[in-house]
């Protein structure tokens, strides 16, 4: 069986969809088709990939308009009687073909306050944590940084507010730090004033596209929003925050 792939070819100056026909075999994923096309028809077709098993988050693209990892999107899930469109993520500037400039994400992360642990619990310099206390943080740390959540977030995708909003990926990163049982840093001020958590209006688009099924909105962003409210709008929150600071001193 053959299938047609409409692949976006071009660079920052512009581009167009081009059709490529390739043979489809059992179990193939979109990335396999891209590789076949690269090998036989378009050797300079640019795409990122590494692990081919949904673990590294390199091969993000939009397949039939949906943000997907190409390595985990099976052709059997797609209607192959119609051409399959493959195009680069839209929230980031195109470099070439399916490759976008995601460097903004790396700059954003660098600005987030790093992990700062409390003093070790045991004389040998180690800590004690219960599994149930880290389940939530481990969920967030499953993130493979594919940036599909950033791609689908309308604050970034449609409104291009990259300077004022860090996006779901980094809200989850902040959540993983804030909910880490050992962390003593306080990040609510930045969340509110610099990282733009208020721009998120919890439409859950990010959660829907997460290949790791992280409950980004319910388990991460909403609790962070509550922390911001507690810290800045609740007088008891101010007192509690001051008390916590004293404890950690």
């Amino acid at each position, binding site marked *: 069986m053959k299938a047609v792939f409409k692949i976006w070819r071009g*660079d920052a100056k512009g581009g167009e969809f081009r059709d490529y026909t390739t043979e489809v*075999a*059992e*179990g*193939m*994923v979109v990335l*396999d088709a891209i590789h076949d096309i*690269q*090998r036989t028809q378009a*050797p*300079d*077709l*640019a*795409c*990122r*990939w*590494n*692990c*081919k*098993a*949904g*673990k*590294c*988050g*390199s091969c993000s693209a939009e397949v039939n308009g949906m943000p997907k990892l190409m390595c*985990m999107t*099976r052709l059997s899930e797609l209607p192959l009687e119609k051409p399959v469109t493959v195009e680069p993520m839209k929230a980031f500037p195109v*470099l*070439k*073909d399916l*490759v976008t*400039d*995601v*460097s903004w994400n*790396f700059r954003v*992360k*660098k600005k987030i306050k*790093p*992990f700062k*642990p409390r003093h*070790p619990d045991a004389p040998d*310099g*180690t*800590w*004690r*944590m*219960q*599994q149930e206390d*880290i389940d939530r*943080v*481990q969920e967030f*740390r*499953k993130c*493979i*940084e594919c940036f599909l959540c950033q791609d689908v977030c309308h604050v970034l995708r449609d409104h291009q507010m990259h300077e004022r909003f860090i996006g779901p990926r980094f809200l989850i990163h902040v959540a993983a*730090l804030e909910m*880490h049982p*050992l*962390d003593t840093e306080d990040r609510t001020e930045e969340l509110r004033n610099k990282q733009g958590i208020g721009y998120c209006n919890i439409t859950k688009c990010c959660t829907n596209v997460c290949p790791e099924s992280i409950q980004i909105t319910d388990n991460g962003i909403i609790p962070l929003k509550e922390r911001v409210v507690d810290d800045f709008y609740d007088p008891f929150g101010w007192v509690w925050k001051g008390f916590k600071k004293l404890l950690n001193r």
Partner: protein
Amino acid sequence: MPDYETFEHDVLVIGAGGAGLRAAIEASAAAVRVGLVCKSLLGKAHTVMAEGGIAAALANVDERDNWKVHFADTMRGGQYVNQWRMAELHAKEAPDRVRELEAWGAVFDRTKDGRILQRHFGGHKYPRLAHVGDRTGLEMIRTLQDHGVHRGIDVYMEHTILSLLKDGDRVVGAFGYERERGRFKIFRAKAVVLATGGIGRAYKITSNSWEYTGDGHTLAYDAGADLIDMEFVQFHPTGMVWPPSVMGILVTEGVRGEGGILKNKEGRRFMFDAIPENYRTQTADNEEEGWRYCQGAKDARRPPELLTRDHVSRCIVREIKEGRGSPHGGVYLDISWIKQKLPNAAEHIKRKLPSMYHQFKQLADIDITEQPMEVGPTTHYIMGGVHVDPDTQMSRVPGLFAAGECAAGINGANRLGGNSLSDLLVFGKRAGEFAAKFAKENSLGKIGPPQAEQIESAAREALAPFERSSSESPYQVQKDLQDTMQDLVGIVRNESEMREALGKIDDFKRRAENAAASGNREYNPGWHTALDLKNLLAVSEAITRAALERKESRGAQFRDDYPDKDEQFAKVNTMISKTEDGSMQIRLEPLPEMPDYLKQIIEEMK
């Protein structure tokens, strides 16, 4: 100096997986200027794929564990041709390196009393692998990455190094290109650390991504360093075999650590059929004992599925060859059977092996809590690599260091699962520390006319694929090489097939020199594939020559023309270097003499 953009650092680290990141962090802690070059985006290196865990004798789960047991296990697994000093340092320092990750924010699974949990793995006597479900590598690389970016390291993402620059004997920098625009760059440095990972792309069936083309191995070899133990390529016993497009993708050994069993099409647990002599006293002789071991019973011995990877791979190949394989040319790996033993087996499996569950469900329509998986060996890791000083990780080229998979010595003839992540941390740190020391003791090397000539010649060579009008596709040369290495220098080897492989590699070299690239220099994978061929061919030749030279079967090297171990080869390593005329020279080097206190440990643990 040639007119390319030039950067200056004290220490340049090439490769940003576990070893490269750890080296960069350590060097930056010594207050030198550090540059970190990565072939992909930061955080995507192969470390991210590691699943099972980090081996370290923390003794959190079994208090009988300590560095001596870990050392003895590593040497036994490596069939005693390991560099003893590396195995010793590794066993002693791994626990501190793991605890350090926790201090930097890693969140490992916990014991009931709140400490880092450890799991069973092949060849480790006690539960020793600190882990996070089956995504330990992701946890490790992200922890190092997030810690590293706050330390003032300059990161060059999507850059590839083409050659190392030398002034006399000493390394003084590197020359390469960036993917985005295809522009050349010069990196001047007082010391260079290679941490480029493996060579998996030389084989057809592999768990490795496009990046693993033996870059560090070849850069070091070209610069005058020795390569050691190149014949020892690890074929991981359990890669996916179906559907064809996922062939080779890794299935973690953690499946067996959690109680998964291997069966042939007759339903027989064939691993009980051939237990090697040196593991007999440590291995269960019945299924019930094996299960109790996985459940943590201290009086039980390990099930034969948790024997070393070289052995398990060969048993699987035997079953397939003798007609007892599964429908798609593998064997069965079954974790679903534990529902006979555990009340919430399905939930337990999903919690302990979430990404395996996800991977099979999504890519193969298999629910591993209900059905067995089909698995077969996949090229996973190379024990061989750059020969380094065990303490400093410096090669014989002054200023050139190597760590992680591209360096060699700790693993001998076979690596134990979990020893790779700890190797990255222990020797990444050491490489960073001593590279920084070297940088402080030496000034920036000269980039004069000889170096300029070297740069211009590398640039001409790199651009040559665009000048060619041939129809030779770099992808096709790569594929033909992969088929050859898979068929002729794979799990079972012999002299005539390997001689044939050497002839073919010569042909591929000629074809590679004729391979053409179309399009322009901007983010052009066809061009990059053409450039990587040189390295792939060099390591393929090195593997084949070393495997020919070792006329015996030991660890990962199995030869059907020399099926037994040979005492003569128990005392030597193969060593490869480049001669003046550019040809590959191989010699046998005696193993360094092991001190008595270590011999005694090995004797006591036998």
